[in-house]
């Protein structure tokens, strides 16, 4: 019984079967095939829509995430990065800040170095930043020389330039940088000053900033 031949479906008929509106029985002379196709494309059943809430939730979430078009995430990212760099800058500055203040105030033109030596050199040890940390026991010379101001200002400069490009305006307002600004002789001179500080070998005093305190000593 299963061997009898079915009528061959022409291309045209096949196309008609494929193209007819779903859910409608195809009148092609192939009734059983038509019925099967109609059944396969029958209207939706409720149990086929069980994922609706999840899909809508995903749509909602996506809409929130991209509300003003895809610009948002990038802006967010940048903002986040900025906050981060400012934080890092603040932390670095805080670490260097003690020195910075001690060093800067200790060596500011107006002030003689009366007591900066002990303060400065302990701080230098603490930061372990630059060249001089191995000689904390010769405290009298170091602080006046390149040692104490350079590392601290360097630290500030590093913090400053790390936050550069994005947040200079904020950096200026940050009290942690006031020492640096003072040392540089003005907020607008900080970049040049820092370029100098970071670019030069420690102790080499070819500075541009007028307020730089330690050089005159040489």
């Amino acid at each position: 019984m299963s061997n009898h031949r079915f009528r061959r479906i022409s291309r045209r008929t096949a196309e008609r079967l494929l193209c007819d509106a779903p859910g409608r029985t195809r009148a092609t002379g192939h009734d059983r095939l038509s019925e099967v196709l109609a059944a396969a494309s029958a209207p939706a059943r409720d149990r086929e829509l069980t994922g609706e809430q999840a899909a809508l939730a995903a749509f909602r979430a996506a809409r929130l995430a991209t509300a003003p078009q895809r610009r948002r995430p990038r802006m967010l990212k940048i903002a986040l990065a900025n906050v981060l760099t400012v934080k890092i800058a603040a932390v670095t500055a805080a670490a260097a800040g003690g020195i910075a203040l001690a060093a800067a105030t200790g060596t500011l033109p107006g002030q003689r170095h009366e007591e900066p030596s002990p303060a400065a050199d302990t701080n230098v040890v603490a930061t372990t930043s630059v060249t001089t940390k191995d000689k904390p026991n010769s405290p009298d010379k170091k602080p006046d020389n390149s040692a104490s101001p350079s590392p601290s200002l360097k630290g500030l400069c590093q913090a400053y330039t790390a936050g550069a490009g994005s947040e200079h305006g904020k950096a200026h307002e940050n009290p942690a940088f006031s020492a640096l600004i003072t040392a540089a002789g003005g907020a607008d001179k900080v970049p040049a000053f820092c370029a100098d500080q970071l670019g030069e070998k420690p102790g080499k005093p070819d500075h541009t900033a007028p307020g730089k305190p330690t050089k005159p000593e040489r």
Partner: protein
Amino acid sequence: MPRVQSAAGFGDSGEISGVVWSPRRSSAGRSIADTGAEAMLTAARRGDEDGFRALYREVQPKLLRYLQVLVGADAEDVASDAWLQIARDFGSFRGDVDGFRGWATTIARNRAMDHLRRQQRRPVVHGTVEDVAEPAGPEDTAQAAVDSVATDAALALIARLPRDQAEAVLLRVVVGLDAKAAAKVLGKRPGAVRTAAHRGLRTLAAHLDKAPPPGRTPSE
């Protein structure tokens, strides 16, 4: 043919978004009234949830049936995955409602292929009738499909086709894509898809012919 769709652009995951999806419609009278459907799409684009819900209700049953043939019982899970991606990438979709159907189907198919790969398992529809070892023989399935005109039975019957034929038939008949859009989803040439669909229909007809006629006989 200038309009052979290069489906190579459709990566396996993700990078479908942003592609303009507006297949030419070769036949009128597709499943949804176009104006209403376009309105849903426009509303959804504006962020309107009801618009997206309407799209879901329109497309999901089709996807689910297609997936049922591809991944069997896991169809619902795969469909959920697909809808998460559809919702997420919806903002980058460009195209009309037909395009949306094709785009969504491509995502669903990619998720299904991922799923199958993960399972290291052959697709349910792989192989011919004889290869499939299942409790019900093809005749029984055909009988059930004809007798009850049940959707699931019809899908089960289609699932017995070789996969390329099954997919071609489903994409055209169930999902409602035209040959070109179906070809785009499958990454083939429209001609190949057309041929596969025609073969699929012939094979189906053969199965049906082999089955006992639809005289109300539950069994012989």
